[in-house]
């Protein structure tokens, strides 16, 4: 059992130590595939920290030295369902990645897509203590945010201060040292089911690894697939995964909303499997080879051997036209996109200045998806592929690896979260030295 909120600070320290040591693994626990990348940090990134944007968007400091992907087992809707199976899948991926890297990895940063993420916008306001904003003021304003009722059995996964405002000046990135009276902050908080993260932590621990960080898949694939301008001006990233489709909205380089639709590529496969009466594996193969979303006259004539592996090779020579296949796939993809649309509407995406939508994830490789998506989601839709990072094998550069690549970037330069700031002095334990110093300062 890990208490996620309590251990966030420890995980951050562990991540720092792992990066200092040079090797850390990222693990993407997906519904259909489990991918693991081993990163080596060579220390060049640390010097670029002072700049606004580091060279190569902050990804110069590391290199992928090991990569492995395996079929995921025991995961449904992005949540771990069979612990032992998932543990085996993690072991497979990790061992292969370690073997490729030729080095042992002890720390792993994991991400997963399910567990019902829920976004909250928090606001806090505090009077600045002595006209100049100090670290302590920021800590105080962060802790002054009124936390809504997040529900029983839920944990905070991300809590990022998105915006600072001093008196009437808003949009400050770093208000430290500025002069003002009232400091306000807007914070984005993402909560998930505590059980899911417990299960993940347990699986990772069973593999003799230390969990050095957790991230939401929607968030990290947004980091990887959105280009810098899109992150700055506002965009939504839709990660069409196997069991879930993650939605994340970015503006001013901060995630302001994340959600996930519990539908994905596996549902499409299931539909094909049921519609054509073929096994799952065949359905998956047919989907990836012949799948499409827009039927043309040509597709009526293109016949697909579905060879339904029933053992009766003489009689079972079924064929379907590609148009039929498209007829099965399209309603499900439309349903997914409609659901995404609903989530975006609920988040108020249409009030954002920029309506850019980026589709990524393995599902975004269906031919004709961009046309369909632009009809449902809005005009400005593009297919996104993850950023290129050093040493990534060609096989892992596709959109299906957006969240794995995003985790690399997340590991290299993580965003400051609530727990990365100082603890306000009055929240310290009663016998703390800092508290004594503050009492001394206040009274003398």
């Amino acid at each position, binding site marked *: 059992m890990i208490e996620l909120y309590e251990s966030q600070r420890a995980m951050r320290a562990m991540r720092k130590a792992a990066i200092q040591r040079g090797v850390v693994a990222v693990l993407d626990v997906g519904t259909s595939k489990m991918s693991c990348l081993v990163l080596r940090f060579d220390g060049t990134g640390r010097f670029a920290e002072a700049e606004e944007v580091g060279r190569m968007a902050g990804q110069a400091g590391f290199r992928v030295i090991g990569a492995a992907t*395996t079929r995921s087992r025991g995961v449904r809707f992005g949540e771990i369902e069979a612990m032992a199976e998932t543990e*085996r*899948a993690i*072991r*497979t991926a*990790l*061992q292969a990645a*370690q*073997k490729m890297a*030729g*080095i*042992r990895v002890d720390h792993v940063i994991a991400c997963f897509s399910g567990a019902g993420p829920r976004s909250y916008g928090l606001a806090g306001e505090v009077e600045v203590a002595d006209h100049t904003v100090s670290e302590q003021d920021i800590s105080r304003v962060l802790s002054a945010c009124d936390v809504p009722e997040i529900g029983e059995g839920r944990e905070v996964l991300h809590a990022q201060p998105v915006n600072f405002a001093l008196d009437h000046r808003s949009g400050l990135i770093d208000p430290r040292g500025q002069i003002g009276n009232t400091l306000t902050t807007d914070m984005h908080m993402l909560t998930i089911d505590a059980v899911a993260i417990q299960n993940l932590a347990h699986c990772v621990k069973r*593999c*003799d690894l230390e969990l050095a960080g957790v991230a939401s898949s929607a968030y990290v694939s947004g980091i990887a697939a959105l280009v810098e301008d899109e992150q700055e001006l506002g965009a939504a990233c839709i990660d069409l995964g196997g069991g879930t489709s993650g939605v994340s909205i970015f503006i001013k380089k901060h995630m302001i909303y994340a959600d996930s639709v519990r539908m994905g590529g596996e549902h499409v496969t299931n539909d094909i499997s049921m519609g054509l009466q073929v096994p799952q594996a065949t359905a998956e193969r047919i989907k990836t080879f012949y799948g499409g979303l827009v039927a043309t006259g040509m597709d009526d004539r293109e016949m697909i051997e579905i060879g339904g592996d029933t*053992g009766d090779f003489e009689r079972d020579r079924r064929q379907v036209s590609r148009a039929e296949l498209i007829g099965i796939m399209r309603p499900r993809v439309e349903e997914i996109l409609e659901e995404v649309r609903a989530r975006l509407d609920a988040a108020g995406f249409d009030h954002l200045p920029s309506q850019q939508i980026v589709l990524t994830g393995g599902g975004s490789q269906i031919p004709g998806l961009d046309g369909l998506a632009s009809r449902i989601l809005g005009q400005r839709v593009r297919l996104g592929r993850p950023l290129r990072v050093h040493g990534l094998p060609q096989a892992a550069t596709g959109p299906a690896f957006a969240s794995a690549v995003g985790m690399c970037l997340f590991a290299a330069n993580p965003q400051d979260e609530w727990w990365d700031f100082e603890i306000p002095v009055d929240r310290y334990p009663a016998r703390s030295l800092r508290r004594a110093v503050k009492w001394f300062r206040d009274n003398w």
Partner: protein
Amino acid sequence: MRPLIPRTDPAPSRLSYRLERMRLTPIYRRLFRLGAPVLLIAGLVGGYLADAEKRAALGERFADVRRQIETRPEFMVHLMAVEGASASVQEDIHEIFPYDLPASSFDLDLQEIRDLLEDLPAVARANVRIRQGGTLAIEITERVPVALWRTRAGIDVLDATGAVIASINDRAERPDLPVLSGAGADRAVAQALDILAATRALKEPVRGLVRMGERRWDLVLADGKRVLLPEAEPVRALERVIVLDKSNDMLERDLVTIDMRLGARPTVRLSAAATEEWWRITSADGATDNSSGATGR
């Protein structure tokens, strides 16, 4: 439909996963890549050598191979060539040569041979080397006999450094060499040779030199006259005698000893007959002739 033969699980077992992780730890990797082979080889070698019989067999084989290489014809020495040695010395060398030829050049200890040869009395210096074609070339520099040294034990032949080269039984064997005698004569051979060189100007034949008290020489002439030479600069003293001989025919006279030990006062001793004669003359002529005889010396 469930397949009859279940598909093998692609996932590594927990144990193999842990082992793999351990193997990838840097220290273990080094241990496996370097330590294990070294340990294995050491174990195999040690296990093989633990048996004394095998060890002996191995040593024998090694020695055998070594012998085979050493006895290749390229390394064999068939012949000994001695240069610069007289027949008797050559005989001696053949006698003392410690190896049986043909022998491998690996077995020949040239330094030892050289030391052995230089221990021979007649050999001053020996060069030993193995020439191409399997010849052991020995170059001998012999000691040159320059004098005979008559002692109580017999007659020794000396070279210029005083080293005894050989012993002879009869003086007549080497009539060309001068004779020295007296204790310690061998330590002053060089001086003796200088003196003898100076005696060439002397008309009288020389019988030899006698070392007196291990510090100075007496020159003995053929007719038994003795010239007592000083410790320092004996050659000069001898030259004085020669000059006196030339001017006064001193050695023609009936003397027993010419004492040159004190440079300022050379002294002669007359023979018994001469003394008698002297007394007779001086008693007939009176005391004045005595002084003139004294000045005539």
